[in-house]
């Protein structure tokens, strides 16, 4: 068993390897393996796994890459995320990827799928439309058709047929993955000092660029390590961070929140890995239906998800209460329409529930955190002193 420090260092390195070396090495080991890049938030990775593929999360270039060409593709009022993706594509970081999936989360990501089509990056570029109708016989069927399109794309490349058996096996692996991640969050809820939010972030982000089997092994070890005491409890408040589900905040920002006296007890940074709540049926005769049913009935809340009938403001309050949080920090990327259009309603729900909140905006390459740290620090102090 590796030491905990080694695991953390390896995860950090994997998280920000913008050349995706580990994934490319995995692919090179066998000729029928494929790499499928996907953008935030969620795709059913199980179907890629079952097709002998490795789903690779592309979460942007963050503050690790200077954007030069990407800026020439986007106006100043469009978020930073897609320009980082274009930079990666033009700098050949995404070479060797066989295809790309662009989930239906906003118009920027949607149109980015068209830009990949026009520049013919990868062998397929699939805009992955989520159903916004949640009737199993309507939206559920549509979702299955969307998955089948991707399966056809992959089959055209490696001629590997996705069987029910392979899909059930993949579902089982990802069930385990989600369960282990939730175990980490559960331990952190009680003992947040045992694993910092930055460390948690690295561990989860590493998981989207390596095979799930390897990630499950890492997660098992992490759970084991943090089941024992580690670190020192601090006089921090407990917060939920919301709004960073697509463009990722720089690690410095997460660190600043923590250093300002806040334990981040829940967040939506790597939401795709936690999208489905609970297990998906892993013994189904129709695993695609099982995946579809999970999407319809077990999705978490997010700004990309139509919420009439199940308002996300209330779900955020429920989450904050479940995590015993003292407050909510709304941290959205600048120009992120989904997150920013949701914010007033979510704030209203927090107000109604008596949950204090603050908000700020960031770019993935924000370099100055002083103001954010002061804001989070004041928030923490005000709760500690007067709440």
């Amino acid at each position, binding site marked *: 068993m590796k030491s905990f420090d080694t695991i953390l260092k390896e995860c950090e390195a994997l998280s920000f390897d913008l050349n995706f070396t580990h994934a490319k090495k995995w692919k090179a080991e066998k000729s029928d393996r494929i790499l499928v890049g996907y953008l935030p938030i969620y795709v059913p990775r199980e179907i890629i796994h079952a097709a002998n593929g490795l789903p690779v999360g592309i979460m942007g270039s963050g503050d690790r890459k200077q954007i030069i060409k990407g800026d*020439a*593709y*986007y*106006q100043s*009022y*469009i978020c930073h995320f*897609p320009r980082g993706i274009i930079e990666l594509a033009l700098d050949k970081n995404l070479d060797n990827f066989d295809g790309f999936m662009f989930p*239906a*989360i*906003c*118009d*920027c990501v*949607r*149109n*980015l*799928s*068209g*830009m990949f*089509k*026009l*520049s013919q990056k990868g062998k397929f570029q*699939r*805009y992955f*439309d989520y*159903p*916004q*109708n949640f*009737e199993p*016989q*309507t*939206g559920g*069927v*549509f979702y299955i*058709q969307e998955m089948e399109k991707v399966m056809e794309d992959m089959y055209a490349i490696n001629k590997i047929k996705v069987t029910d058996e392979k899909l059930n096996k993949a579902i089982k692996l990802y069930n385990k993955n989600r369960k282990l991640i939730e175990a980490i969050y559960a331990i952190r809820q009680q003992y947040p000092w045992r694993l910092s939010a930055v460390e948690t972030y690295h561990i989860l982000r590493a998981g989207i660029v390596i095979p799930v089997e390897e990630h499950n092994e890492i997660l098992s070890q992490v759970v084991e390590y943090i089941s024992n005491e580690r670190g020192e409890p601090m006089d921090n408040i407990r917060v939920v961070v919301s709004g960073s589900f697509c463009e990722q905040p720089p690690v410095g920002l997460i660190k600043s929140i923590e250093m300002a006296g806040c334990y981040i007890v829940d967040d939506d940074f790597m939401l795709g890995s936690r999208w489905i709540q609970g297990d998906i049926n892993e013994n189904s005769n129709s695993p695609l239906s099982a995946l579809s049913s999970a999407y319809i009935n077990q999705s978490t809340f997010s*700004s990309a998800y*139509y*919420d*009439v009938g199940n*308002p996300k403001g209330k779900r955020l309050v429920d989450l904050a209460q479940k995590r015993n949080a003292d407050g909510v920090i709304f941290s*959205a990327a*600048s*120009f*992120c*329409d*989904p997150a*920013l*259009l*949701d*914010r*007033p*309603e979510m*704030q*209203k729900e927090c107000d109604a529930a008596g949950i204090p909140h603050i908000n700020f*905006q960031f770019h993935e390459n924000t370099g100055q955190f002083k103001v954010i740290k002061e804001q989070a620090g004041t928030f923490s102090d005000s709760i500690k002193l007067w709440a």
Partner: protein
Amino acid sequence: MAAPTEAIKEKSMILQKDMLAKQFHDLSKAKELGKKVVYTFVPGNITELILSFDMLPVYPEINALQSGMRKKSASFIKDAEKIGFSEDVCTYVKCDIGMMLNGNIGPTGEKLPSPDLLLLSYTGCFTFLKWFENLERLYPGVPVAMLHTPYQEDGQITKDQIDYMVKQLKEDVIPKMEKVSGKKYDPARLSEMMKNSAKAEDLLVKVLESAKNVPTPIDAYFAGVYYIGPIFTAFRGTTAAVEYYTELWNEVQERMRLGLGPVTPEGEIKEQKFRLVMEGPPNWTNFREFWKIFYDMGAVIVASSYTKVGGVYDLGFRHDPTEPLESLAKYCMGCYTNMNLPQRVGLIEKYVKEYKADGFLINSIKSCNSFSAGQLMIMREIEQRCGVPVGFIESDLVDPRYFSYANIKNRLESYFQMLEQRKIILKRDGIEAG
């Protein structure tokens, strides 16, 4: 700069103004008349279906753009920002929310009725989804029907997608309309309306394609936004729309016969120096100033993508009375902003070539990612494929803070100078422009 106080208007414009005035008046009296009101969106609207239940549609984007043209949007937007909406987000949404916060007084000064049904026709714009989530909270208890329109991801409309939409219409949208209106769905009535839709669509295409003539009798962007008004909104499927487009087409034919150019607020354009294809919505807060920069320089827009947000009829689609629900589905999916980027580039390329354009210009709108994200790539593609000069300006829909007259004028003047130089060089070298 001062714009003329009295705009010169075509007869069809006056006709349209009367239609709109009546529409807003009817809306103000809706509750008294016992009419049910449906809030919905322009792209992918299913107006015929709403009208077939004798309900009245309200389009929040139209209210917002009207507020923009009437200089009311700035304060509405600020009011929305005061309750937490970010400066970064869509100004149509903020203008609409601000208007509601201020009593929901419509563009004609009459109060708009509250909705009896919120019909989210989710076509080509993710923000619509967020917008209606907000409306749902502003009008608690009002039923919401969602019609999810799949994106033309593969550049085509598939049978599965049509089935998905028809199923939603049958199982969710129509039952909710029946419940709200108290009337049964009448497919024969819907089909009858679609005959009118198709007639009006035929006429609109003739009007828009008249710009293939050199000189063009119309401006397909600044005047085009008026031409699309009735058919993109509350009148498609009605005899009033057919009458309007018949009148409009007669006017255009007459102008062609007389060899006249487009009518602007200051009269006919005498000299057409530059023929342009335009991408992106216009700015509404300074619409006349914006237009004036063009006609003062002798620039006319011969084709535009914005006039296709409510249907790309020139590609052949017509509402089909023999399959009304399938036809609504195809219509929704066919709208411009629901086309993928390669399709959009292909359409613009076709326009530049078929309309013999001298250049391609983008008005990039800060508020509208559906249009704006990817436009710089569209620009490069068009430049490469068509070999015409391309231009790029930036403004916003209804937020006057993002309309910088001097910047836009400077950029356009430079662009027109470039077009001028190119014409001189092409003429010198004996090459036909466009």
